[in-house]
């Protein structure tokens, strides 16, 4: 594998850890958050300062980063999670930004907005993937235990939960603390991966990204969270040439999910034989749907169309050229972190996606109209038969 692939895998693992934390708090405990990047920042800066200023080895520093974020989350949760989660959601809006601003202005310790350079590159792919594996197993186990049931009970009906003996506010704070730990570890790993941290890396956009992943994957599904991370991280990577529109694409993806599948990719189900079978039967049912058939045809038409017309704005290239780019990306000919817009591949990919989407939506709409006309005809026929 080339550097680029290894970089992507590492980044995936790091994002995944933070997303699991948010999934526990938002998906399983039912409290929306828009400030979890703040906990990542606390983890990142804690471990960085420990390593550079105090010479602590990286392994304990990562754990310390997680614990610092956990402690901070606990302190914030105590007053804001007393009654129901809504207060926390509002507080979290300001919280993430507040943490960022403190880091930006506390220059003597954090070196301010210009960032903290010179962090040793301790987050290799095995380290990141190892952390992710251990934390994922821990999270799966936690969800399938008394704590998991307690969190879900507090989420689904906090009155009923409290009358089953759960101190619901304590459980909410506990859930937030654990999710803070996950985000703190993720931030620490990110610091060691980038070798450089800066407050803007943990801004509102990062918090939104984390929540988007969890909503996209399905609230209350850990495997959905893993899949959400995978898809959204790769989509982000694909659209890197137009990174200034990244938030727009995130918004678009979220709106699409909410319209087409409000419960997210997985809903509250975990990946397993049952959910696979259900997805297959759904897909089968879709092929019998006129509108969906047209949509599929649209996608198939979209691929050649995107190559034939090659709109100059996206500078589409030939299929052969596009495919030939992939091995060079994978083998590391294009370094991870190097500006990708110099390579043509993502532009071509973008062209395909856009053309497919346009063709599919036109075809889908056409299918819908045909279905409607048929229905009207049918009802007329039925009317005559009477």
């Amino acid at each position: 594998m080339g550097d680029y692939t290894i970089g992507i895998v590492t980044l995936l693992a790091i994002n995944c850890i933070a997303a699991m934390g948010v999934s526990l708090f938002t998906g399983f405990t039912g409290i929306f958050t828009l400030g979890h990047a703040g906990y990542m920042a606390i983890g990142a800066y804690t471990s960085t300062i420990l390593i550079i200023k105090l010479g602590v080895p990286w392994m304990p520093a990562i754990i310390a980063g997680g614990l610092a974020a956990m402690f901070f989350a606990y302190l914030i949760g105590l007053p804001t999670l007393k009654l129901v989660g809504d207060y926390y959601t509002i507080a979290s809006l300001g919280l993430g930004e507040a943490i960022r601003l403190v880091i930006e202005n506390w220059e003597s310790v954090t070196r301010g907005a210009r960032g903290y350079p010179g962090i040793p590159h301790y987050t290799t792919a095995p380290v990141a993937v190892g952390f992710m594996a251990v934390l994922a197993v821990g999270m799966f186990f936690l969800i399938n235990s008394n704590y998991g049931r307690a969190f879900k009970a507090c989420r689904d009906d906090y009155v009923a939960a409290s009358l089953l003996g759960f101190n619901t506010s304590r459980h909410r704070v506990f859930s937030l603390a654990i999710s803070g730990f996950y985000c703190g570890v993720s931030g620490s790993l990110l610091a060691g991966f980038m070798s450089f941290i800066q407050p803007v890396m943990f801004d509102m956009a990062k918090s939104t990204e984390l929540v988007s992943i969890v909503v996209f994957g399905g609230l209350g599904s850990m495997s959905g969270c893993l899949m959400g991370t995978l898809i959204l991280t790769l989509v982000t990577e694909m659209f890197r040439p137009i990174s200034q529109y990244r938030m727009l694409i995130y918004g678009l993806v979220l709106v699409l999910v909410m319209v087409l599948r409000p419960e997210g990719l997985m809903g509250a189900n975990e990946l397993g034989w049952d959910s696979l079978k259900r997805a297959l039967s759904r897909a089968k049912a879709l092929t019998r749907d006129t509108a969906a058939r047209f949509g599929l045809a649209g996608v198939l038409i979209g691929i050649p169309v995107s190559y034939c017309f090659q709109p100059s704005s996206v500078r589409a290239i030939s299929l052969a050229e596009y495919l030939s780019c992939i091995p060079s990306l994978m083998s590391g000919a294009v370094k991870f972190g190097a500006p990708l817009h110099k390579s043509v591949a993502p532009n071509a990919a973008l062209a395909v996606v856009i053309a497919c989407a346009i063709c599919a939506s036109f075809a889908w709409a056409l299918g819908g109209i045909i279905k409607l006309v048929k229905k009207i005809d049918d009802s007329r026929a039925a009317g005559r038969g009477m």
Partner: protein
Amino acid sequence: MDACLELKGVNKSFGGIHAVRDMSFSVAEGELAGLIGPNGAGKTTIFNLVTGVYDVTGGEMEYKGANINRLKTYQVVALGIARTFQNLRLFAASSVLENVMTAAQYHHRYSFFEAVSHLGRWRGTERAIRDESMGLLERVGLADRAGQPAGTLPYGLQRRLEIARALSLKPSLLLLDEPAAGMNAEEVSTLNDLIVKIHEDFKLTILLIEHHMDMVMRICHRVVCMNFGALIAEGPPRDIQGHPEVLKAYLGEEE
């Protein structure tokens, strides 16, 4: 007999609405008592006060001689009080079994580290919780539906599930809020048998809210009747049935 639950001059108002006025009554240890009254009489509010969902505006509530006025909902459970809800409050998306297990774990604890590692007491305790929950589901006749999402059960069965869930807390006082609502005559009669049976087998004290008089008359030892938030009659079912105030309250409603 000792009083299990005793209310002394309890008041509750919501802004201008005086939902409970000066209610005083007691439920003796081991009794199966009924709380009746027309819609809006304040019965559910009494349950909400006893279980700490609302704070009392005035008066005293005692459970086995100890004041429970200021207790939080989860502290009430520790004393041995469990309840069901008139407007079902099941975890609708979770399975029937998981609903009961969520409550049954109250008496089976293991630590956080055992939970994240699935080591130590995790396996044995989870099995105990599961077995106990399945046992309770068998008691209420839901064992064959254990894997189904609770929200997909018919209403009558959801009410039984609420009873099973409350029982898994091993209460000594069980508060049932209109457990027969929405059931047909046959279902009501099997529910009656179930309530009488669990009352005996679990050595419970039960306070049962019921809107329909006949069910209460059949199974309760003693009946408390209220209207407009106040007590209007109290005594054995036979006396209550012919009580002029009670008749007036119920007839008044039908007009």
